[in-house]
C-alpha cells in the first residue's frame, strides 16, 4: 500500500489501534515550558503518578521571561513564581531544563531544532500550538493542551484519532526577495483560518524543496493558523546536513543508520490525500495582514477586500482600516522582529542585510528579539548586532516577547505593529494593539521607512 510521509511516521508510533476508538500514539520527545506545564505537574502529583520517561522531556523558560536584564530576578511576582515553579518541577522529576541564564535557553521551537533534539520521523509534542514548527524535519509535531501534557508525563503516549491528510503543493520559482513567511501567509490567505482543521498538512513542490531549513520551519510553524494540527516537509539532504553534528543528534554509525531510515520516509509516489491544493510560486508577492486573523492577508500592493459579514466589519473596525483601502504609506510606529516563526539566524541576516547602512525612521520603535541564546551569540559573532545598533534597532535577549506580550514587551493601545510573529488577533501584542503580520524583510523595510512600503516600487 502506498503511504504518505505522515502515514509512515504515525503508523510506526501506534502502540495500539482500536477499531472505533482513538489510537495510543507513542511520543518520542516532549518539550515543555513554564506556562502550560505547572497544572500538569500538579495533576500527576495529586494522583500520585510519577513522570514515566523524564529523559524524553526537555524544558525551557520562554513565554513569560523578560528580554532585558535576564541575569536579575524577574520583577513581576507572578511571572517569577511561574518560572521558579518550572525549575522546581524539573528538579523534582529529573527533567533537563534550559532555564534563564543557560546558554541553550530560548523559544522552545527554536532550541529543539538547533540542539538536534528535533529529528526526522519523530513524534513530538509541546503545550504550545506552534509545535507544528518541528514538522519541517519530517516529524509529526503538534501542540497539545495541559491535560494532554499530563497524559504524556504519565505514559509518554496520547490517545488520538488519526487526522485526515492534506497536501499543499507550490511549484515554480519564487520572485526575487519573496520570503518563506510570504509563502505561508499567501497560502493561509487563500485557504482561510479553518481550512486545515482536522488535517495534517504536507507541504510539497519546488518551493519547499528549494527552501532552507529555517524557511521550512517558518512555513510549518504557521500550519496551525489555518487550523491544521501540524505541517510536514519530506526530509532530504538539506535536513540531514542540518541535523548532523548538533548536540543531541545521533553520531557516527548511528547517524548513518538513521539517515538510511529517514530516506525511506518521503511520501510514496501515487499516494492519495484527503484534500489537495496547488499554487503557483509566481503568484506570490510580499504579504501583509490587514485584519484580526492570519487568513486576512494580501499582497502589500493589493487593496483590502470588501466583505459584508459582521465579523469582517468588526475586524476592520478594530484595526482602524476601511474596505478597499491600500496599506501603502500607512505610518507604523512599532516593528517587532522575533517569535518562534521568525527569530532564527537567517531571519536576522535578511533583516540586517536590508538595514545595513540605513537608519530606522524617527517615529519607529524597532525591537529585535532572538529566538535563543545561541541565535543571540551567532548575531554577535556575525556582527549583526552592530548593524542593528547603528540603525537604531533595539536588540533584546531571547524569549517569546511581544508575540504574545505576556512579559513587559507590549505594543501600546491603538498602535500599529508590523510584526514577524504568527498571530494578529485582537490584543495579542497588548490590549488594543493592532498587529500586521509580515516577513522579516517587510518588517525591516517598514522600520526604515516609518511606514508600509512596496519593496518592488
Amino acid at each position, binding site marked *: 500500500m502506498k503511504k504518505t510521509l505522515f502515514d509512515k511516521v504515525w503508523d510506526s508510533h501506534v502502540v495500539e489501534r482500536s477499531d472505533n476508538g*482513538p489510537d495510543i500514539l507513542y511520543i518520542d520527545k516532549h518539550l515543555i515550558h513554564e506556562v502550560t506545564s505547572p497544572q500538569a505537574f500538579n495533576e500527576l502529583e495529586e*494522583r500520585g503518578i510519577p513522570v514515566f520517561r523524564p529523559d524524553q522531556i526537555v524544558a525551557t523558560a520562554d513565554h*513569560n521571561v523578560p528580554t532585558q536584564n535576564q541575569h536579575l530576578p524577574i520583577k513581576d511576582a507572578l511571572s517569577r*513564581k511561574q518560572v521558579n515553579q518550572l525549575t522546581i518541577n524539573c528538579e523534582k522529576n529529573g527533567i533537563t531544563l534550559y532555564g534563564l541564564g543557560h546558554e541553550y535557553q530560548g523559544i522552545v521551537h527554536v532550541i529543539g531544532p538547533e540542539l538536534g533534539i528535533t529529528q526526522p520521523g519523530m513524534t513530538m509534542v509541546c503545550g504550545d500550538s506552534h509545535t507544528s514548527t518541528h514538522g519541517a524535519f519530517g516529524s509529526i509535531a503538534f501542540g497539545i493542551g495541559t491535560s494532554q501534557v499530563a497524559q504524556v508525563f504519565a505514559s509518554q503516549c496520547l490517545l488520538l484519532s488519526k487526522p485526515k491528510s492534506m497536501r499543499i503543493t507550490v511549484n515554480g520559482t519564487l520572485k526575487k526577495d519573496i520570503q518563506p513567511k510570504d509563502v505561508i501567509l499567501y497560502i493561509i490567505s487563500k485557504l482561510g483560518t479553518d481550512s486545515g482543521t482536522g488535517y495534517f498538512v504536507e507541504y510539497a513542490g519546488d518551493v519547499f524543496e528549494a527552501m532552507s531549513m529555517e524557511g521550512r520551519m517558518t512555513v510549518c510553524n504557521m500550519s496551525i493558523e489555518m487550523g491544521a494540527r501540524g505541517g510536514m516537509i519530506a526530509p532530504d539532504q538539506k535536513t540531514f546536513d542540518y541535523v548532523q553534528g548538533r548536540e543531541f543528534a545521533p553520531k557516527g554509525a548511528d547517524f548513518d543508520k538513521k539517515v538510511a531510515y529517514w530516506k525511506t520516509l518521503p511520501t510514496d509516489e501515487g499516494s492519495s490525500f484527503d484534500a489537495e491544493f496547488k499554487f503557483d510560486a509566481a503568484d506570490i508577492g510580499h504579504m501583509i495582514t490587514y485584519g484580526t486573523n492570519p487568513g486576512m492577508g494580501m499582497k502589500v500592493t493589493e487593496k483590502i477586500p470588501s466583505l459584508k459579514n459582521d465579523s469582517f466589519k468588526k475586524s476592520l473596525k478594530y484595526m482602524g482600516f476601511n474596505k478597499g483601502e491600500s496599506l501603502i504609506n500607512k505610518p507604523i510606529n512599532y516593528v517587532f522582529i522575533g517569535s518562534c516563526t521568525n527569530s532564527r539566524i537567517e531571519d536576522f541576516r535578511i533583516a540586517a542585510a536590508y538595514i545595513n547602512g540605513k537608519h530606522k525612521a524617527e517615529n519607529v520603535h524597532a525591537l529585535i528579539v532572538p529566538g535563543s541564546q545561541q541565535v543571540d551569540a551567532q548575531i554577535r559573532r556575525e556582527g549583526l548586532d552592530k548593524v542593528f545598533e547603528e540603525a537604531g534597532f533595539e536588540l533584546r535577549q531571547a524569549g517569546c516577547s511581544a508575540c504574545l506580550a505576556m512579559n513587559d514587551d507590549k505594543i501600546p493601545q491603538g498602535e500599529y505593529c508590523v510584526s514577524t510573529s504568527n498571530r494578529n488577533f485582537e490584543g495579542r501584542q497588548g490590549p488594543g494593539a493592532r498587529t500586521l503580520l509580515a516577513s522579516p524583510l517587510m518588517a525591516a523595510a517598514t522600520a526604515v521607512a516609518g511606514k508600509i512600503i512596496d519593496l518592488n516600487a
Partner: protein
Amino acid sequence: MEAFKKLNSTAVPIQIENIDTDQIIPARFLKATDRKGFGDNVFRDWRYHKDGTENQEFPLNDTTYSGQILIAGNNFGCGSSREHAAWALTGYGFKVIISSFFADIFKGNALNNGLLPIQVSEAFLKVLFETIQKNPETHLLVDLENQTLSIEGSDRYETFEISAYKKQCMINGYDDIDYLVNNRDKIIAFEKKNS
C-alpha cells in the same frame, strides 16, 4: 472530571466568528500555576472597557442572557493551545459550547475538562441565535446519551457527533490518564520492540 449526561439551560449568544483563545483568555492572565480563577477573566477585553467599566453591550454582561450554554459563531477556539481557555469557560459556569465549527485543540481541551463542544449545522446555529435573541428565556436541552440538542417547546432539534470513547469519558467522568496508565505494559512492550 465531572460527569455529564444531560443539561437543560438557557443560553448566552456571542454571534462572532473565529473567536480565538486569546479572546477567551488573554495571555497576560496565564501566569497562574493552578487551574482556578480563570473564569473571572473570561473574554476579559470584550467584557470590560479600557477604563475598567463593564461593556453592557457584550452578551455576558447583558442581563437579558444567562445560562450554562454558550452559543458562538463559526470556528470557535482557534489559535493558541492554552487549556486555560477551557478552564476560563468552565470557571465562569459554562458546561456546553455550541458552534458550527470548533478548532481541534480547543475541542480536545474542552472534552478533557467536562465541557461539551456541540457542533451543529450552520442553518441550525442560525436558528439558535434567532431563537435566543428573540426569546432569551428559551431553554435548550442537551442529551449526551442520545446525542441530541433540542429547543424546548418546539420540535426543532439536531443530533451531534462525538467519538464513542469521549462520550463514555464524559458520561462517566473518566479521563485519558486512567486509560493510558492502565496500558503501560503495552507501552513498555512497544518501547522494547523499537529500541
